[in-house]
């Protein structure tokens, strides 16, 4: 069964492959190769949408990505996808599409009353009303507005939707955007020169405007074949260049063809990031609408679109079209349609033209010197009223569609993003752009060179210019097919608007009328960017592609200035709306950030650890399925009572070598390292230049000119970069080599009163007695047969050692330690227990090193060297950083043992409960005593030891009494670590 609108064989459609689909519940049939729009038109479905604001009936206006009206929801396995363009949506078997923004149905839409109320809803009316009563905006008006706004509905079936897309990185000498005759010729010529060329076109086939002209088939085929034979040229149909990002970088969206999508696991599109030395913008020109009353009726469409439907899909958009136009170029559609046996009438604002003569010769009725005053009909064009430009002679023409063309605007958005200035060209009534030579060339219609042959020649010449710039001789190869000559043309007569009493739209999607533009001007929103924002003109998904300049023209007229002075609004990426998924690429969900795994990750996992993400790392939090503090306290208790082992491989580790290593560390650290003996470790603090603490950690001297710095896990990257920066920028003369050895070394803390015995059992050749290997000793040693390092340092407050071995031996060594510790009941402990232990001991970590604490705040003022320069020295001495009322580190305990502490508790005085005196930074149930202990930063905290404050967490409805204590809550004399 042939669809009524299908009158010929289309270039892209296959008459032997019918495709069934549904629109608004109605089953229809199209052909393989059809877009949804083509199939709908073939089936005589003209009404396809309701407009945004007035809910007016709308049809299909264009045949490409510039479509403002024919947006549909597509319902598929992955949910409901809104705002798909019927004009680019390829038909496939079983496609289900629904019209948008109407209720209960497309034909009977209740909100169409908005149209009747239109006079009360001009641009920006909402700024002037809905102000009273005060509560009503959020509760009444806004919800109503929000529900009315938006076009499609997004309903996702999560999971399927998150199928990752992919990003591909490309490199080329020249990117040619647009594969019309200009782009094809340019790409071919550049390709013959051996330059690496990418040719991208948003269309499913290459050819651009030449596809519409049968005379050009031979040339096109020859060029495409030529391109295919050039190894250095890549042709990317279905690829829209989304934006130009400077430095030769372009983003492009490639939609995969169905077979390729199948090969790529259902991947729908890929983002291409293209780096090119030069660009050729051969993006063609866009046909413009004309603002006249009723220019939004279904059946009113661009003339070029009708031409495309006929040629590409064999579909006649109507049987009695009236053309309304102002240029010879637009007659191409007239010739095509009448050539297909369709009876056409033309209304041309120009008195006469070469094209009109040619049309008349073909028997087309041409009304010269006339305009369309209005299009009429319910839900579709039935008739158009034509008036003589003098305004005298009026007549009505029967029509089932009105094909308008207000001229062509070169597609300059990429050029604008590349910094091109727009110049007004009276001859074509449009702006053109020029690229700086170092960036590339405009070519063809994009440069205002209309006509296929002229564009092809222009593309060639652009290619020659670029090849010369890039020092490549162009090849002589010729397609071997002559360029069909362009017809002579009569210039365009600018025509933007035909004024009348009814609504004439400049933005069909956002329902902006010419009257809205004038109102905007009257209210002072007369700069084109103000007008855009006030009326929302050009802010819809089509970004005003076909009506943008018309809005500017109406504004210019209202302001009484020439159009070039008004200009256009600024175009931005993206050239076509691009799905989140495509922009996101593959680095989503589990790949959103890399996971850093410990060398013993699998062991921890097998041991039942609950993992926690800290930064990029996955760390064992506790060796039990996470619930409650009991397991944590057991782990911590083992350390306090006997011995435990924990994986601290996440610490940053930086190898520092060279004759100036000690001097360098003395600059970097506020603490002194030059005096550190070989075989010893020292705890040090590092400041930022503004005097605040940056990081802390232990540094060991392994040899006179060899140090090993450890940093906190959180600051590992930042600290390395801080050191690299200062070494290279500030003290480049220091002869120091920094190497990141963070991943090289696995490091385990073996802690607890029995740790010496355990470590002794696995370490060979190292005497561990207090005398031989005292607190803060460091040495190389053989650990379980592996060359490693032993440090006697303690974060837990207990006698403890840290064993470092190359990560590939981590398991062997860890197992050996466990084995050796078996008789003491050694158990691994996780991050929670580690925290418990260090809080009790009063050791600080990221919660206290929060970027706003000074050495003085944390009671470390004595660690600042008295002599010599170091980063932060000068500014750390400012009174602001040492003022006694600053927040200082203290310990806190609830008075009632049964009360728990909570990080983020605010501390207030009982008599002034709204003034914060500080807050709890870290807290834990204690192993040593019952009840909780915590660390806090408290205003003038050191003077408050013994004071009682209220710890309050209003968000949890909690308030408890606490006591301020010294942060050194465990073994303040440090006897245990020195045991």
């Amino acid at each position: 069964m042939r669809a009524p609108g299908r009158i010929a064989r289309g270039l892209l459609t296959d008459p032997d492959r019918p495709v069934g689909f549904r629109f608004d519940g109605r089953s229809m049939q199209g052909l393989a190769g059809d877009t949804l729009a083509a199939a709908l038109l073939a089936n005589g479905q003209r009404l396809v949408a309701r407009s945004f604001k007035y809910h007016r009936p709308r049809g299909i206006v264009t045949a490409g990505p510039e479509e403002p009206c024919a947006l549909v929801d597509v319902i598929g396995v992955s949910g409901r996808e809104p705002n798909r363009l019927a004009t680019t949506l390829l038909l496939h078997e079983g496609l289900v599409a629904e019209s948008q923004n109407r209720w209960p149905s497309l034909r009977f839409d209740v909100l169409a009353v908005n149209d009747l109320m239109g006079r009360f809803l001009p641009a920006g009316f909402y700024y002037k009303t809905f102000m009273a009563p005060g509560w009503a905006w959020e509760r009444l008006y806004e919800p109503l507005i929000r529900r009315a706004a938006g076009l499609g509905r997004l309903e996702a079936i999560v999971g399927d939707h998150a199928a990752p897309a992919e990003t591909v990185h490309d490199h080329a000498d020249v990117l040619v955007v647009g594969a019309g005759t200009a782009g094809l010729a340019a790409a071919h010529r550049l390709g013959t020169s051996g330059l690496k060329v990418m040719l991208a076109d948003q269309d499913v086939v290459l050819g651009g405007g030449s596809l519409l002209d049968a005379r050009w088939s031979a040339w096109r085929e020859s060029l495409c074949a030529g391109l295919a034979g050039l190894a250095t040229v890549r042709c990317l149909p279905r690829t829209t260049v989304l934006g130009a990002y400077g430095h030769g970088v372009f983003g492009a969206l490639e939609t995969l063809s169905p077979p390729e999508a199948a090969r790529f696991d259902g991947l729908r599109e890929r983002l291409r990031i293209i780096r090119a030395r030069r660009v050729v913008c051969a993006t063609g020109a866009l046909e413009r609408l004309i603002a006249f009353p009723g220019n939004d009726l279904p059946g009113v469409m661009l003339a070029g679109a009708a031409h495309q439907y006929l040629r590409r899909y064999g579909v006649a958009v109507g049987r009695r079209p009236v053309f309304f136009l102002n240029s010879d170029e637009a007659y191409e559609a007239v010739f095509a349609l009448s050539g297909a046996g369709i009876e056409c009438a033309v209304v041309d604002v120009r008195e006469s033209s070469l094209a009109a003569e040619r049309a008349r010769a073909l028997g087309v009725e041409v009304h010269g010197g006339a305009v369309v005053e209005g299009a009429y009909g319910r839900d579709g064009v039935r008739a158009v009223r034509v008036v003589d430009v003098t305004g005298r002679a009026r007549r009505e023409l029967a029509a089932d569609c009105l094909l308008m063309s207000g001229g062509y605007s070169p597609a300059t958005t990429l050029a604008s993003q590349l910094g091109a200035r727009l110049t007004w060209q009276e001859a074509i009534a449009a702006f053109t752009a020029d690229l700086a030579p170092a960036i590339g060339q405009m070519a063809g219609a994009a440069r205002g060179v209309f006509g296929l042959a002229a564009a092809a020649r222009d593309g060639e010449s652009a290619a020659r210019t670029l090849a010369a710039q890039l020092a490549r001789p162009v090849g002589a190869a010729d397609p071997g097919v002559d360029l069909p000559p362009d017809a002579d043309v009569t210039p365009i007569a600018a025509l933007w608007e035909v004024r009348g009493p009814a609504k004439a739209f400049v933005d069909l999607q956002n329902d902006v009328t010419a009257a809205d533009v004038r109102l905007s001007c009257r209210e002072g929103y007369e700069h084109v960017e103000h007008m855009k924002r006030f009326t929302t003109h050009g802010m819809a998904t089509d970004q005003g592609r076909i009506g943008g300049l018309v809005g500017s023209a109406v504004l210019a007229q209202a302001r009484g200035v020439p159009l070039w002075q008004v200009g256009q609004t600024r175009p931005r990426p993206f050239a076509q709306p691009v799905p989140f998924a495509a922009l996101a690429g593959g680095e989503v969900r589990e790949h959103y950030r890399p996971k850093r795994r410990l060398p013993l990750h699998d062991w921890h996992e097998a041991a039942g650890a609950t993992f926690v993400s800290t930064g990029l790392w996955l760390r064992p939090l506790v060796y039990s399925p996470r619930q409650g503090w009991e397991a944590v306290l057991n782990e911590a208790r083992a350390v306090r009572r006997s011995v435990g082992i924990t994986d601290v491989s996440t610490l940053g580790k930086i190898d520092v070598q060279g004759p100036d290593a000690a001097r360098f560390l003395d600059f970097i650290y506020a603490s002194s390292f030059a005096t550190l003996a070989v075989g010893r470790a020292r705890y040090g603090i590092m400041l930022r230049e503004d005097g605040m603490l940056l990081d802390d950690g232990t540094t060991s001297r392994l040899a006179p000119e060899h140090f090993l710095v450890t940093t906190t896990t959180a600051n590992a990257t930042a600290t390395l970069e801080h050191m690299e920066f200062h070494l290279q920028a500030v003290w480049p003369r220091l002869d120091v080599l920094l190497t990141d050895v963070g991943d090289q070394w696995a490091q385990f803390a073996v802690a607890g009163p029995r740790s010496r015995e355990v470590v002794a059992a696995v370490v060979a050749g190292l005497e561990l007695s207090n005398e031989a290997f005292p607190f803060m000793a460091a040495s190389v040693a053989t650990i379980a047969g592996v060359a490693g390092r032993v440090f006697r340092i303690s974060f837990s407050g207990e006698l403890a050692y840290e064993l470092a071995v190359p990560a590939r031996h981590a398991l062997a060594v860890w197992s050996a330690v466990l084995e050796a510790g078996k008789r003491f009941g050694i158990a691994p402990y996780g991050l929670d227990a580690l925290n418990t232990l260090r809080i009790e001991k009063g050791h600080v970590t990221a919660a206290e090193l929060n970027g706003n604490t000074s050495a003085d705040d944390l009671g470390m003022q004595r660690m600042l060297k008295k002599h010599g320069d170091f980063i932060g020295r000068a500014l750390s001495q400012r009174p602001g950083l040492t003022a006694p009322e600053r927040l200082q580190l203290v310990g806190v305990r609830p008075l009632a043992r049964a009360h728990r502490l909570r990080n983020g508790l605010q501390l207030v005085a009982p008599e002034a409960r709204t003034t914060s005196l500080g807050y709890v930074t870290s807290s834990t149930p204690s192993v040593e005593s019952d009840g909780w202990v915590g660390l806090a930063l408290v205003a003038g905290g050191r003077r408050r030891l013994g004071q009682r404050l209220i710890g309050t967490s209003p968000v949890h409805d909690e308030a408890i009494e606490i006591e301020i204590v010294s942060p050194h809550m465990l073994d303040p004399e440090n006897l245990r670590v020195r045991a």
Partner: protein
Amino acid sequence: MSAPDSLPMPRATPGIRLASCAVDIVEIAALHGRAPELENIAGARGLDLPVLGRVAVASGQLALGVRPARWLLLARPAHSGATAARWQAACGRAGAAVDLSSGLAAWRLAGPQVRDALARACRLDLDPQVFPAGSAAATVMAQVGVILAVLPSGLLLLTPTSTARHLRAWLASTAKPFGLVSEADVTVGVLSGDRAT
């Protein structure tokens, strides 16, 4: 009318073969102005240190230059730390040798579609014209640092061990359409400059 379509076509045979290489890796770095000394030292041991951006293979060892005055040396695994210790001794006061055998994972990627697959993460131009055999570079893939080198037998990839599993999983998912298979260890081949079959 059909467009010349040069997109990579996944094939039935795997486009990518990934093998890990068990190697010792040592980074040697020269102190100020002493790179020539290191070059001499290495030369004496049969290894011509390559210029920046290149890789050199000799006598079962491999040297990569991706940082000025620094080289990554790859060798057959020895007793823990022994390779590094040897180089440490050799460097003397001209520079430092740091063991990174456990810090970097080494893989060899081979197969007809390696470059296409890597173009999904790698921002460098891996076109053989631009990145020919013998090239080496440090860059970032899937947010992870990598060092790439073009060997006769394929592409050598070094990456920090803590994120190696992540990168591997990422590669596996991104390269799936091309077909990714794991191969047995190819250490020897890599170090001797074998051609992949």
